[in-house]
């Protein structure tokens, strides 16, 4: 592997929402053009395009985006990796630069998911009888509820503590103009919302939205040649893991072990520990999931997530703010875009451009995604002033 560090020199995301009249290509292209402009380059400077999209994985979405922003004949790599799709696309670009193959690449993540309804567990019976509702539920709200309740079994985590995650992330999103929603949701509203899959109410489930995010990656020498030191965010760690065998993962997707393994690798690669992080964007696909990842990422000890919530340590202004963007719960979760959009949030803080929700003096941030099936990707980023 080449020794050159890789930098995010330009990054953008669109305001997440519902865009019935727009093509997936136009959504991806808008973020891509934004990232090119931010990096002060054009499509003619880009040597390869990494395109992340899940729901249209067979649709050559990367090429469709090229047709909107410039067909220069460069390689396009279409990536699908469940909810880690965007992060995996970005990471493939990172790897290619580290390998010395390219100096400047573009990564884009895009998804049209508004109105998709509940994911997982549905669909027609392939043959015989569909097991949904007979052999438990395979719906995503249930899978992550069961993961949360396993934490409750071990540590006594309460419905109210799970619900507080959603109160926090919705609060954070009121300061993020690019979030899908900017609405406060007090505790009683979160707990009193329609119960989907106990303990996850509707307000504790991520928002299905359309969205896109993109970034330009550069080798260190290219970044310096272009004089982008003041905005370049260094990728200190880029990690991808899958779920190793565990005794229960045949019937209970294990989002914990792959996250723990990824975190360990990422901290080693970056040469930092959780105590060095100024902010975290983690995969709050459901409120229950965020609780698990506090411990998986080492933000607190095992069994201490409930205490972290009670102390409001992960709120803005707290010891380790988590999901200042509003997270998947309120910013929204356009699957293929999520793993780049969370790095957009980090980059804004690390560059001092996060507006009302800015973490003062932020130098190091961690972005985490889980793709059920299962995989985990973690990136640790360092700001230009660090």
């Amino acid at each position, binding site marked *: 592997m080449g020794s050159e560090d890789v930098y995010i020199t330009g990054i953008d995301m669109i305001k997440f929402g519902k865009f019935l009249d727009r093509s997936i290509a136009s959504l991806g292209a808008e973020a891509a053009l934004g990232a090119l402009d931010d990096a002060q380059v054009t499509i003619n400077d880009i040597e390869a395009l990494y395109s992340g999209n899940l729901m249209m994985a067979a649709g050559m979405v990367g090429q469709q985006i090229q047709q909107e922003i410039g067909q220069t004949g460069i390689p396009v790599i279409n990536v699908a990796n469940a909810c880690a799709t965007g992060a995996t696309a970005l990471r493939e670009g990172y790897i290619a630069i580290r390998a010395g193959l390219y100096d400047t690449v573009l990564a884009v993540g895009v998804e049209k998911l508004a109105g998709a309804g509940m994911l997982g567990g549905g669909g027609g019976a392939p043959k015989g009888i569909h097991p949904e509702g*007979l*052999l438990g*539920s395979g719906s995503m709200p249930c899978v992550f509820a069961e993961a949360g309740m396993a934490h409750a079994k071990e540590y006594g985590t309460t419905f109210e503590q799970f619900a507080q995650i959603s109160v926090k992330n919705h609060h954070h999103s009121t300061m993020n103009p690019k979030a899908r929603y900017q609405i406060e949701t007090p505790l009683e509203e979160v707990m009193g919302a329609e119960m989907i899959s106990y303990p996850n109410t509707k307000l504790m489930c991520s928002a299905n939205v359309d969205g896109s995010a993109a970034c330009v990656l550069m080798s260190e020498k290219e970044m310096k040649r272009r004089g982008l030191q003041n905005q370049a965010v260094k990728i200190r760690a880029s990690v991808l893991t899958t779920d190793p*065998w565990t005794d229960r993962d045949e019937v209970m997707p294990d989002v914990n072990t792959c996250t723990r393994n990824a975190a360990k690798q990422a901290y080693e690669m970056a040469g930092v520990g959780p105590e060095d992080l100024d902010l975290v964007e983690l995969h709050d696909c459901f409120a229950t999931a965020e609780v698990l990842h506090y411990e998986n990422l080492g933000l607190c000890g095992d069994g201490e997530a409930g205490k972290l919530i009670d102390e409001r340590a992960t709120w803005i202004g707290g010891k380790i703010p988590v999901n200042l963007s509003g997270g998947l719960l309120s910013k929204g979760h356009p699957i293929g875009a999520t793993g780049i959009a969370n790095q957009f949030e980090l980059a804004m803080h690390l560059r001092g451009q996060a507006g009302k929700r800015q973490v003062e003096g932020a130098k190091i941030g961690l972005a985490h995604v889980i793709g059920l099936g299962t995989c985990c990707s973690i990136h640790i980023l360092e700001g230009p002033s660090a």
Partner: protein
Amino acid sequence: MSDQPLSIVPFLKVPESGDPYLEGFKCSECGAITLKPRMACAKCGGRDTWEPFKLSNKGTLHTFSIIYRAFPGIDVPFVSAIADLEGGGVVKTNMNGIEPDPEKITLGMDIEITYGIAPRKDAEGNEYMTYYITPA
């Protein structure tokens, strides 16, 4: 259409005589237990190591959720549960014999696996034998 109830999953065995039971497979190399034998052991990569055995009908409740919003045609609420079985093996299915109320369900409680005819038939009208997690 079959005149006998079909098995809802391959690991639920319905003998001609005697009670239905769940069958697991244990890896003779590393002891991993699966409900669905793979080409090689998913834990150690061993080949031809899966040995079938009867899973216990006793265990403890590892986790659950109560489903209030499901897909069209699925009755709600119902309890989705996961249990650790005595002697190894983990199963997921509906929990019956208890109210779908979080106050009534105790994590870690003793459970047993029970069997019965599923309340739905398939498109051809076949009946299915299914299994439940039931408070012991």
